[in-house]
């Protein structure tokens, strides 16, 4: 049984049919990427999984349990953390408070302290800034904070929405290196990216989303050699 199963997912925004029957699954321990052009429905897919938007049809199962259309705040508790598009850090909280709020539902203080230590070891740049207001961080640091905050929930499945968005090339490299480290430590990852080049190198499986439907799916390494993909998403002519 797959860890996450999305089947025939349909989402509407005020009548706009944003997802038109998307189905895919994520196996435990793998990195799956969802790539596609701007507006294809990648963010919407993640939002439907974590309960931020309603699934009009179809369903999402996590570890065998149906989670579609449960209130968002109850889904985190099941082991699914979502680092949203645009990072979604709380600039009115300090960096440390942002981390702590990632562990909002956890009652195991010792485990939380340990995870905080691990997250800070993974992102040393935010460690020096714990007392600062999170709004003062640079874009790259905010992205790191958003990922560290998601890890504070100790998720079994991590949803990452465009972690490379708007970042300088070296920072993008750093972020992807950390994504690899997180995956290597056993966390399953569903990675949404417009940067198909990087995403296909990190992921094992890839799905290509085109205006609300999956156009292509398969092994990431194979897809990165596919002519159509190379032309449309990797900028090779």
């Amino acid at each position, binding site marked *: 049984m797959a860890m996450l199963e999305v089947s025939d997912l349909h989402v509407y925004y005020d009548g706009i049919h944003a997802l038109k029957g998307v189905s895919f699954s994520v196996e435990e321990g793998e990195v799956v990427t969802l790539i596609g052009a701007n507006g294809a429905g990648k963010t919407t897919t993640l939002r439907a999984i974590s309960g931020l938007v309603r699934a009009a049809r179809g369903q999402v199962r996590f570890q065998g349990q149906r989670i579609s259309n449960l*209130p*968002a705040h109850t889904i985190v*508790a099941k082991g699914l953390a979502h680092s949203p598009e645009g990072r979604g850090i*709380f600039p*009115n*909280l300090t960096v440390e408070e942002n981390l702590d709020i990632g562990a*909002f539902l956890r009652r195991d203080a010792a485990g939380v302290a340990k995870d905080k230590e691990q997250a800070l070891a993974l992102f040393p740049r935010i460690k020096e800034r714990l007392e600062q207001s999170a709004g003062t961080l640079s874009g790259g640091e905010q992205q790191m904070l958003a990922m560290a905050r998601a890890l504070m929930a100790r998720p079994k499945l991590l949803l990452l929405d465009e972690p490379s968005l708007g970042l300088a090339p070296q920072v993008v490299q750093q972020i992807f290196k950390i994504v690899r480290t997180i995956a290597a430590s056993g966390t399953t990852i569903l990675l949404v990216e417009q940067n198909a080049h990087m995403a296909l190198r990190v992921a094992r499986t890839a799905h290509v989303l085109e205006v609300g439907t999956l156009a292509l799916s398969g092994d990431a390494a194979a897809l990165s050699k596919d002519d159509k993909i190379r032309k449309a998403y990797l900028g090779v002519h």
Partner: protein
Amino acid sequence: MKLGGPVVMLGLLIVQHGFPKFLQTLVNSVALGSLYALIALGYTLVYGVLRFINFAHSDVFAVGAWLSFTFATAFGWVATSSPLWGMPLVLLLVMAACALLGVTIEILAYRPLRKAPRLNVLITAIGVSLFLQNVGQLSSVFGTQPQRMPSLIEDRSLFTIAQVHIRLVDVTVIALALALMMALQWMVFRTRLGRAMRAVSFDEKVASLMGINVNRVVTITFAIGSALAAAGGLLFALKYEGLKQTADATWVLLGLKAFVAAVVGGIGNVRGAVAGALLIGVVEVFGASYLSPHMRDVYVFVILIVVLLLKPSGILGKAVREKV
């Protein structure tokens, strides 16, 4: 700048009238400011999480004052003086009752409109306000007759400075308001709940991704804001004693001035609400006792206009940022 003139004039008047009058005015203004602060905090807390002005808040304050009267008379403390624990008991009761009222209003009237346009919620709030004002006047509720609040605090001076008797009731009002404000400050900035409130205030969707139950946070916010307004209601009744019926304009005016305090301080900002309220209290009471008592409400709105012109986001407010 044109403000300089009145300020210099007031300064000269203060010197001319002597220290005792200044001290008495200061105590009165801080006491009134503390009351405004307790009410202003409710406006600001609710605005913080929902970005909406709860126009029924001043009526919750009025209900708090009237319920204090109801409880005090029910205990038979009209003619006989109350025991020492009388005031704390009434305080707890009205805070609990108004917290319940605030939560009920939120769940029944506002929650169904959470995704509706702002204007709908605003109109509903005005409806709730009118409802409370008029239900409060039913003979089976508080009635239409003004009442005199039993003095649950002994009317005596606590100490005397420069021939000015500092009354126990004023000290109680200021001390209690201060204690409640400090408790709130601690709650908002030092507890898990406060952190959740600040997160919801910035972005409720992302907050829900953290596992925060946004509806619950909103409910608790209404409970806290209403309980503070109730405390303000009791303290108001103790200090000013005469209670006008719930639909009387004095309540709306007091609520309005507390709202002005929240805006002047920077709406959504807890410390700002307190700062704004103290400023409003000082300006109103000093203006009333040194310049003209008939203009006291005008001074408050002059401050509003001045602050909005100089710093539209309020004294402690951050530059306006629309919620995404």
